[in-house]
């Protein structure tokens, strides 16, 4: 672990894992696309310091829920509250500054940039320099640039990719790019991290490593995590709580064990095996 990471970790001392206050409150959210109802009155909460798994069959609305939280979609009904702030009044670009970071199901990296620059952009919300201070290279802009850069290196180190910092992003294999996305999301120092299928394309061993990485995100960086994943052993292994969706509705909610045993979840999603 690089010095920067260590320093950062220190500043964010681990918090209690089972804090009670809801950091994110999704309440009765409905999202429609023409005739398709992708989310139909979905409600759930994510408590501060928790790792929450969001599962459900393909097309159940998991990514849509993320997109609603990111304000990329406008719900036709419902409320989303984060840390006491109603998100629906804000534009999408204001969400990151509140402390919500996310990765994407299908890669959404900046193709022309290096790995490092991608991660630096992730920290955009934590910067303030503007057109004028950047153009004139005012000391404030230079200082900020150094901070962002250091943090990006730290986050690359955290996910184990610092050696690749200067590689063009497109030359990395899929699984590695997913990890860059994770580093990028972390670069904004979020309170809540939304991960959409982070384990895609990883083999068993790599999934296990990812699991401990996500735990460290929570434990060392103190970040609450909401994650979508079809890799059941992964989700069930690290989540404090699991929410299951089907056809845009919540069909089960509870501890991993409870949800795994739920009949509706089994018949809609898990199948008899497992």
């Amino acid at each position, binding site marked *: 672990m690089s010095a920067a990471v260590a320093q950062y970790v220190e500043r964010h001392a681990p918090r209690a894992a089972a804090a009670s206050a809801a950091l994110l409150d999704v309440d009765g959210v409905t999202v429609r696309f023409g005739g*398709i109802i992708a989310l139909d009155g979905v409600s759930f909460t994510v408590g501060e310091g928790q790792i929450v798994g969001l599962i459900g069959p*393909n097309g159940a609305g*998991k990514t*849509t829920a993320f997109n609603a939280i990111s304000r990329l979609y406008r719900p036709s009904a419902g409320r989303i509250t984060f840390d006491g702030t109603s998100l629906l009044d804000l534009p999408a670009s204001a969400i990151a500054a509140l402390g919500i970071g996310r990765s994407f199901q299908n890669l959404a990296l900046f193709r022309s940039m290096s790995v490092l620059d991608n991660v630096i952009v992730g920290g955009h919300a934590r910067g303030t320099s503007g057109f004028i201070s950047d153009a004139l290279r005012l000391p404030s802009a230079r200082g900020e640039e150094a901070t962002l850069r250091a943090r990006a290196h730290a986050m690359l180190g955290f996910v184990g990719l610092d050696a690749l910092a200067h590689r063009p992003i497109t*030359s990395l294999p899929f699984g590695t790019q997913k990890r860059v996305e994770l580093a990028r999301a972390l670069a904004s120092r979020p309170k809540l991290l939304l991960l959409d299928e982070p384990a895609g394309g990883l083999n068993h061993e790599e999934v296990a490593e990812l699991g401990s990485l996500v735990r460290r995100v929570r434990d060392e960086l103190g970040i609450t995590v909401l994650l979508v994943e*079809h890799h059941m052993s992964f989700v069930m292994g690290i989540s404090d709580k699991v929410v299951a969706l089907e056809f845009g509705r919540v069909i089960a909610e509870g501890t991993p064990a409870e949800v795994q045993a739920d009949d509706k979840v089994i018949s809609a999603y898990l199948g008899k*095996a497992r």
Partner: protein
Amino acid sequence: MAGALLEVEGLRAAYGPSQVLHGIDFAVEEGGITALLGANGAGKTTTLRAVCGMVDRSGSIRFGGQPIEKDSTESIVGLGVAHVPEGRGTFVKLSVEENLRIGAYGRRARDGVAADMERMYQHFPKLAERRTQQAGTLSGGEQQMLAIARALMLRPRLLVLDEPSFGLGPLIVASIFEIMGAVRRDDRVSILLVEQNAALALELADRAYLIETGRVVMSGSAKDFRDNEQVRRSYLGY
């Protein structure tokens, strides 16, 4: 291994100046299923792309006894090779139905397209609901189903699958492995499979190869693999 449908020897491939495959040998038997395993970045995707002529390559690739290492992607597809690519390759602005229709573009037998399309909708009812939807708006998993269905529409002799279970829920994963088994059994389609769900892959496959940094480091029957200590630890988890 004479008479294999696909025979690959000394396959090398590069992206610009960086060499990724350093001489890979493997084969897929007629009607057989071959699985490629390997860590993230090992070169599995590159291997499949090289077989289909989507990346600069050298070495020998024979399909049905005929050399194809110089052929273009289109010609290789024309020989009956369907490829489900990493990242799905959805035609995002076309409808679901058009995506399926285009899947049959390269196939020899023009008849039965409509019937095959119906069969795909039976395999993946979710797609049937979405027939006229712009394919780019499908969920990730739905697009994965579409990619598999599109490849099957070619009625291929060889099906090349790059992580077909990617992003799919457990039930659907089970069903696509069933479908794979069925097309192999009923239509004698051979399959070349890259799959991170190694347990399922090795259940289905006859042969397997383990790739590490662009080289084959182990090959054998699926059973050999299941019994191998290292494979168990890294890929199977028991």
